[in-house]
C-alpha cells in the first residue's frame, strides 16, 4: 500500500490510458491525481480529449492519430516529474443545506441506535465535518467523498434499498455520498438536500466538482420546502466559494 515510486501506465484500449499513482485511497494519492490532471489540462496538449480523475488514477482519453502513444507517455512523464512541486488545483467550498431525520432521513434514528449516540449527536458530527470530494462518478454528479468522522463509521445496509429519492445524503463504511437521481442504494440515509446535484435542464447540470470541500448545514422541513421551491424556480444560487490558489495548503 502506498504511493508508487514509479507511476503505472496501463493501456485502456487504443484511445485511453490509466495512469495509476498509488494503490491506496488517501487524500495524498487523490491530491496527486487532481494535480496531474491540472498540469495536463494547463498544458493544452493537442490530442488529449478528456481526463477522468478517481481515487488514485487518472484516465486520459486521447486521439492516437493526433498524439501517438509514445509521445503521450513522454509528455505525461515530463508532467509527473513536476508533480512534487506543483500546487493542487484550488478547491471550492460548497455549502449543502440538509434536512436530517424524519421523512428526509429515514435511517437517522437507527444509525444513532447502532452507534450508541443520540440522533442530534449524529447530525452534529456529520454536519461538523468537512467532506472532500475525491471524484465524481458512476452516474452524473455523484460525489465520492472523504472526511467522515470515525465515530460515524457503520457497515452498509444489509439489504440495499431499491429506491432512494434524489438528494438523499447517505453514509456507509468510511463513505458519505449523495444520490443525484433516484437510485437503488446501500447507504444509510441521514437526510436530504433540496439542491439538485444533477439537473439535465440546467446550463451547468452538475453541482459538485472533484476537489470540492462540502459542508452540510442542518435545515428544518420548512426551510427544505422553501429552498426546494426556489431551486425548482431556478432562483436559488448555491453557496460556493472558490479558494484562491495562494491559500491552498
Amino acid at each position, binding site marked *: 500500500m502506498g504511493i508508487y515510486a514509479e507511476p503505472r501506465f*496501463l*493501456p*485502456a*484500449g*487504443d*484511445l*485511453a490510458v*490509466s495512469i*495509476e499513482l498509488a*494503490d*491506496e*485511497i488517501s487524500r495524498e494519492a487523490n491530491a496527486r491525481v487532481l494535480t496531474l*490532471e491540472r498540469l495536463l489540462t494547463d498544458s493544452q496538449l493537442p490530442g488529449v*480529449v*478528456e*481526463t*477522468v*480523475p*478517481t*481515487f*488514485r*488514477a*487518472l*484516465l486520459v*482519453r486521447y486521439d*492516437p*492519430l493526433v498524439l*501517438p*502513444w509514445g509521445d503521450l507517455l513522454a509528455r505525461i512523464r515530463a508532467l509527473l516529474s513536476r508533480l512534487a512541486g506543483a500546487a493542487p488545483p484550488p478547491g471550492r467550498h460548497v455549502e449543502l443545506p440538509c434536512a436530517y431525520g424524519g421523512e428526509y432521513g429515514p435511517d437517522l434514528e437507527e444509525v444513532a441506535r447502532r452507534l450508541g449516540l443520540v440522533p442530534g449527536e449524529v447530525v452534529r458530527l456529520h454536519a461538523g465535518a468537512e467532506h472532500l470530494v475525491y*471524484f*465524481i*462518478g*458512476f*452516474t*452524473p*454528479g*455523484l460525489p*465520492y467523498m472523504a472526511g467522515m468522522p470515525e465515530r460515524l463509521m457503520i457497515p452498509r445496509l444489509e439489504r440495499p434499498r431499491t429506491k432512494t429519492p434524489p438528494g438523499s445524503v447517505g453514509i456507509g463504511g468510511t463513505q458519505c455520498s449523495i444520490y*443525484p437521481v433516484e437510485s437503488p442504494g446501500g447507504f444509510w440515509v441521514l437526510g436530504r438536500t433540496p439542491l439538485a446535484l*444533477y439537473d*439535465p435542464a440546467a446550463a451547468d*447540470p*452538475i453541482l459538485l*466538482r*472533484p476537489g470540492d470541500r462540502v459542508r452540510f448545514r442542518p435545515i428544518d422541513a420548512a426551510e427544505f420546502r422553501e429552498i426546494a421551491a426556489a431551486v425548482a424556480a431556478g432562483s436559488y444560487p448555491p453557496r460556493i466559494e472558490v479558494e484562491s490558489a495562494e491559500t491552498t495548503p
Partner: protein
Amino acid sequence: MSDLVVVEPGLLTTVQDLGRPGYQRVGIPPSGPLDRTAFVVANRLVGNPDGAAGLELTLRGPRLEVRRECVVAVTGAEMGFAVTGREAPAWTAVRLKPGDVVTFRMATAGCRAYLAVAGGLNVPPALGSRATYLRGRLGGLEGRALQKGDGLPVGASALALDRLEGRTVPLPRCPTYPSEVECRVVLGPQDDRFTPEGIAAFLEGPYMVTPQADRMGYRLKGPTITHARGHDLISDGIPLGGIQVPGEGQPIVLLVDRQTTGGYTKIATVISVDISRIGQTKPGQRVRFRQVTLAEAHAALAEEQRWLDEAVRA
C-alpha cells in the same frame, strides 16, 4: 419546424451525434452512436460534417413523414428501408419530397441503423452535443427516445440537394453484419488481476449476448473467467469498450452510455474500431475476443480512417 414527423417511433430511436467528450469527469458518459463507422458514412453521404446529428435506429426503425424536401442516407443494420412503400437503397443518398413516408422493418442483419439527413437534425445541443443520453435524460429530443407525434427540425444543407442525390458506397465496400462476430481487444488495464487460465478462457470463448445488452453495456455469458486475487478494485475511470468481470466471472462490455467509473477489474478493452461489431449484435448472437497489441489497434484505427476517406463515391 417539423421537417420530419414521427408517425411511429420504432423500438428505440434516438438522436445522436459524435458524442459529448469532456464530461466523464463529472459522471456524464460521452454517448454517441454505437456504430461510429456507419454513422459517419451516413453523414458523409449527405454532405454533412462527421458530427452532424442524425438518428440511431434499434432493431426496428420508425415511420417518418416528410414535410420538407430533403436528402437522407440510411446505413448500418439491414432494416428494410423503404420510401412510400418502395424499397430504397441503403448506403446511398436518397432524395425525399414532402408527403413521402419513410418506413423500416425488423433488422435482418445487425441491430442498429443510422439515418442522416442533409443539414443534420437541428435539435438544441446540451453541453455542446445533440447526442441523447437516455439514463441522464440529456440531449437529443428532451433527453428521451423519439415518440409518436415528435417533429424533427432539419438544418440547412451544406450542398445543393441535387448534387447529393445518388452518392453511394460501392457494394463490396459496405460493412456486413455476420451472426458471429470477432472483437479485437487490448489486454488491460487490469489483466494482471486474472489467472492465466482465466485469460485463456476469455480469449477462447465464445460468449453469447444476453438480453441485458444496451447502449450502456453488453452482459455476455460463456466460459468463466477466474480472478487471481479478488474481483474488487479501487474504483477507477471506465474507458469505451472496457470489459468488466465481476465475481461470477462473466464479462460485461461497457459502451457509449456506460457508468463513468466502477470498482470491478477490467480484463481487456475492445479496440475502438470494433465497438461497432459488438454494438451491431443482438441477444443470442455469439462473440469471440482476439488479442491484439496496442500498435496493431492503432494501425487498425488509421486503416479505418483511410477506409472512411475512400468509401463515399460521388
